[in-house]
């Protein structure tokens, strides 16, 4: 496809976007910044580089708006380019054009087991060894891959995709356009036990799980159902691999939870919350809208809208970064303290002169 033709297919690039078509090269695939070769297109983001990466020879580029140096550098090398307000978004659009997903044949594999009381929408595809339980309702154009298992009374709305080996428990609701990746588990029994003299006694988990529209759940991630009521994931929220969502948790809309995040039972997350890899959230706490946590943080207590935190237990990120800088010089500090103690008979106590902490530290998260 010619570069000019490709541009016409990208909604994020308007007619007025600055461009240099050069010799309007043929583009047949997309590549990364550092590996792009002739016939390929790649993209630069603000801050990714100041000139075309040496040793690469892309035929075309998507550039951030107003980056004179990159524009000139490309033009000099005879590389076609176009500007975008959001180069990464434009790149996502063109990937779908250049590398379309393989069309899956609609239809139901003869080895799939579908209960006669289940209802299937139009153009549904169901792979071999998938199991669809009693009274399930599967919307139009859903794709259920090999070995996925839906227990009874599960509802999957239009255009959702359930990958291989995923297990969806009884009465779970999966909204429109959701993707549940391989071996993920939705609606499993919450980890609720009551300590008694004869051991840990199970609290029955009678609730269910709701994924609103456009939710994505990564491979092997688990969302538990609560004792009563529901565990709910808001629309547009994306969850990475190996994430654990405890029973009765509510996650707002458009949140991003990176790999290995763990959220203990009953926690409530607002909208647009971003949690880095391996972050832990204590049970029953509330995180306001737009809260962000750096990777590996442990969040022990409530956080207001927009707070950015880091550390175990998590403290405001700015404070963490300042303390972490000093942490590196703790051995020297300890040494000089010792020296001072030897010189002076008076016990030094730096703590007494320091101002009180501006934040109380709540106890660490407990098991749910």
């Amino acid at each position: 496809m010619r570069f000019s033709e490709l541009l016409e297919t990208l909604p994020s690039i308007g007619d007025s976007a600055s461009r240099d078509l050069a010799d309007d090269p043929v583009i047949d695939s997309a590549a990364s910044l550092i590996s792009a070769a002739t016939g390929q297109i790649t993209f630069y983001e603000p801050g990714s580089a100041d000139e075309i990466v040496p040793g690469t020879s892309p035929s075309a580029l998507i550039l951030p708006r107003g980056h004179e140096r990159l524009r000139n550098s490309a033009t000099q090398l005879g590389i076609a380019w176009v500007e975008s307000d959001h180069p990464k978004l434009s790149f996502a659009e063109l990937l779908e054009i250049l590398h379309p997903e393989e069309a899956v044949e609609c239809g139901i594999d003869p080895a799939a087991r579908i209960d006669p009381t289940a209802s299937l929408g139009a153009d549904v595809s169901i792979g071999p060894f998938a199991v669809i339980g009693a009274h399930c309702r599967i919307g139009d154009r859903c794709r259920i891959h090999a070995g996925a298992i839906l227990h009874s009374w599960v509802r999957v709305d239009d255009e959702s995709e359930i990958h291989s080996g995923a297990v969806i428990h009884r009465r779970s609701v999966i909204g429109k356009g959701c993707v549940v990746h391989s071996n993920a588990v939705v609606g499993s029994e919450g980890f609720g036990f009551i300590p008694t003299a004869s051991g840990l006694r199970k609290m029955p988990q009678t609730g269910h799980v709701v994924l609103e529209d456009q939710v994505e759940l990564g491979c092997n991630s688990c969302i538990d159902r609560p004792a009563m009521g529901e565990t709910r994931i808001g629309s547009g929220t994306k969850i990475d691999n190996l994430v654990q969502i405890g029973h009765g948790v509510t996650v707002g809309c458009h949140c991003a939870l990176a790999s290995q995040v763990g959220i203990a039972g009953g926690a409530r997350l607002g909208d647009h919350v971003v949690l880095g890899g391996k972050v832990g959230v204590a049970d029953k706490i509330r995180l306001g809208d737009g809260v962000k946590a750096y990777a590996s943080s442990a969040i022990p207590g409530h956080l207001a809208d927009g707070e950015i935190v880091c550390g175990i237990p998590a403290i405001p990120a700015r404070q963490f970064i300042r303390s972490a800088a000093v942490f590196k010089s703790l051995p020297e500090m300890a040494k000089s303290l010792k020296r001072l103690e030897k010189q002076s008979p008076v016990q030094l106590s730096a703590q007494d002169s320091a101002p009180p902490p501006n934040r109380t530290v709540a106890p660490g998260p407990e098991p749910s």
Partner: protein
Amino acid sequence: MQLSQLIKGLSEVTAQTPIDLAGDPQIDGADSLERAQRGQLCFLEKGHGLASLLPSSRASAILIPGRGDEALKLRQLASERGMAWVGLENPKLGFAEALELLYPRRTPAAGIHPSARVGSDSLVGEGTHLGANVSVGSHCVIGARCVLHPGVVLMDDVRIDEDCEVHANAVIHPGSRIGRRCVIHSAAVIGSEGFGFIPTENGWRRMPQIGVVILEEGVEVGCGSTVDRPCVGETRIGMGSKLDNLVHIGHGVQIGRHCAIAAQVGIAGGSQIGDHVILAGQVGVATRAVIEDRVTATSKSGLHGRVAAGQVVSGYPAIAHARWMRCVAAFSRLPDLLRAGRR
């Protein structure tokens, strides 16, 4: 079900139990104090901050602490609201029992689904259910009244005792022994190959893993959790211990009785965990660590070496919880401490 009928099924209720039946309402469901509606039962634990919600609750009946300072006040609040109440030593336990009566567990009918495959010389006990696409290898023994949900795979020589439940797509590797009343949740893996490799000049050489995994009676293993088998000997999880989701138990680990291990905990090979140990979410335990009875580790702590019985530990490397909290408070003030030190 009438409330009077329901409470007959609660183990703690005796002739001496303080009760106000308030007209013996019909109870057909249960929910939390703030959400419960007419016709539903809720509960309140001792010292729980939710007591203030009681006067506005719509629930028809409530289980409350039978003794303690608040007991009388709660009784009064409930009676004023026209709500029936039952005073119990452990209202949460009573609630668990009531949930089972109100929402009985559905057990699939006994029988083997036509698409299930059972290998040669394998025995399937009476009343056991094998769901669609279940695959059972050869020389397996499955006890009575077990439920194997769709897609479960048992490899050869697996033994599962009576009354176990194995959820969809779980995989149990050869030689594993599962005690009575165990629950293996969806997509969990029991008896997978331990992560044992020997560094050589040509890279990592695999150590054969010929050991087995043993789950004693009443063990639960959460969704996506993995229990590895060792090179020789056994990986053992003691009676009544409960593992949450996405837990990893390394090869040769020994876990005692009645432990509670929260989600995403990782226990490295050869560690020994005592009885009644509690590991909170995302805790890590180093190779060959020894964690004695009744240790509690708060979330994300990293344990190594020996942790003495009864300790509560935090941080990495884990130290006494109280000291860790003081260190954490000091960490926030490090820049100020540095400044003070320079003066």
